């Protein structure tokens, strides 16, 4: 794990934008590299908390495997397809993969 004082560099912002699949403008890269570091310095406040021995709370409701009977219900496939931006017949068009 890296040390506390690390900062997100512009190069890292570029990498994150690739991971998140959001192209950023040069202005946004510039702006975010400052803003995100400010926010991260604030987040570091939790470093002070002594919580190593505690288990994490991912969710306040403790549920394990909520099951139900697998019964078919009516579907609205025609209506669902109305929202597809690029469509050919009943085929959804995706961007080029290969």
């Amino acid at each position, binding site marked *: 794990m890296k040390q506390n004082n690390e900062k*997100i560099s512009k190069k890292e912002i570029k990498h*994150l*934008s690739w991971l998140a699949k959001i192209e950023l403008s040069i202005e946004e890269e510039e702006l*975010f590299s400052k803003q995100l570091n400010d*926010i991260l310095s604030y987040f570091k406040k939790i470093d002070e908390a002594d919580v190593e021995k505690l288990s994490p709370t*991912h969710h306040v409701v403790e549920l394990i495997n909520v099951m139900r009977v697998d019964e078919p219900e009516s579907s609205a496939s025609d209506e669902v397809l109305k929202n597809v931006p690029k469509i050919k017949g009943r085929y959804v068009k995706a*961007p080029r993969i290969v």
Partner: protein
Amino acid sequence: MDRLFELTAFEITQRMKNGELSAVEYISALLQRINDIDPEIHAYLTVTEDMALKKAKEIDAKLKRGEKLGKLCGVGMAVKDNICTKDIKTTCSSKALENFIPPYNATVVDFIEKEDAIILGKTNMDEFAMGSSTEFSYFGPTLNPLDNSKVPGGSSGGSAAAVASNEATVSLGSDTGGSVRCPASFCGVVGLKPTYGLVSRYGLIAYANSLEQISPITKDVRDLTILLECIIGHDKKDSTSLNSTKVDYSGFLKDHAKGLKIGVPKQFFGEGTDDNVSKNVWNAIHTMNGLGADFDEISIESLDYALASYYIIAISEASSNLARYDGIRYGFRIEDESQDWDVAFSKNRKEAFGQEVKRRIILGTYALSAGYYDKYYLKAQKVRTLIKTDFEKAFTQYDILAGPTMPILPFKLGEKTKDPLEMYMCDLDTVPANLIGTPAISIPCGSHNDLPIGIQFMTKPFNEGTLIQTSYILEQNLKN
């Protein structure tokens, strides 16, 4: 009476059931009100005039036939635009969903329609519910109806402004870190975030699943009990919704404060809290004390970490949730896709999302990425455990914890949009309830320079009754 739009849901349902008021007459008055003032306030993104009038006619016909009607008989409602409504555009105030028409209803929408509510339209919000001022909407901001130069709060700003300006009798919002309580406080209305799991999230467009709940906004506490009863219930389509027993919340509308124990954590009045806010909130606490409630000043030290922990969790969940917006099955899609799929997706999402959404996705991606997961996400979840334990301890001694809903008064449009951290700081007092899943309410407790101030009450999970009782007592006594 010509100002029918000023009536509460309780008054409306009573009059209709007594045959003193027709749904068409009342809904027409609300629609006229929207026509008159919404061009200025911009609470609504979509007004469903024809559907609303058609439903009103149906209700009048049912009344005429003497049929039994639901608890929200004829009540004109506004619904936040991140709650799916069949055949009504649901945009999340985002270009990504600008033309999205859901083929199904959120479960809460089915519930309120079953109780004969009438949907007037969909309300403005911060894009994907990310914000505290409703300024981060792709369709432009909503203005505070009490002072047009100020923000209405957010992210459910449209839903709160609609109720405050009598453009709807009641409304639904969603609360991930204060998104219903903040605008309720800034607009001078009542907003409650229910216990996590009490209300189905099916059909609520997800931002941070482990934190958010669909939440009611009303003019007063009595209306809140009516709406709350209608939206609670287990839903097999949301496995986190709980099988709770039905409660008659109107039974808690008692003006009886004796024996009530209130804890006032000093951290709720931390640095940056406006003096006028503190003064009014303390006045309310002293009023409760005068009526027989006891109070103690207490300290919950872990509250200092609540905001950081909340934001780390919220943005992490958001970065994962919003990965679904690729423009293939629905939503915004760019024309030119001559390059590879990952370039096409990246360009698509560049266009589809506003800056605050991008900021949170990028930062959430960072918090979840290799090497940082333990330091941010996991640590934040452990801090969440610490805060939860501290609150559980406090709730063994106190029925209610009280403090300001918002540390500051409604601020000017544009005042906080340049510095994201400054905007996040507004949520200091509201996020703890979401982190730990407890119910919390904001009700008006005074004003300064005609700007409303809200007091927040929190209580242990499933104890909404006590919140309602406490709020009702304060409401009745501040009225006098």
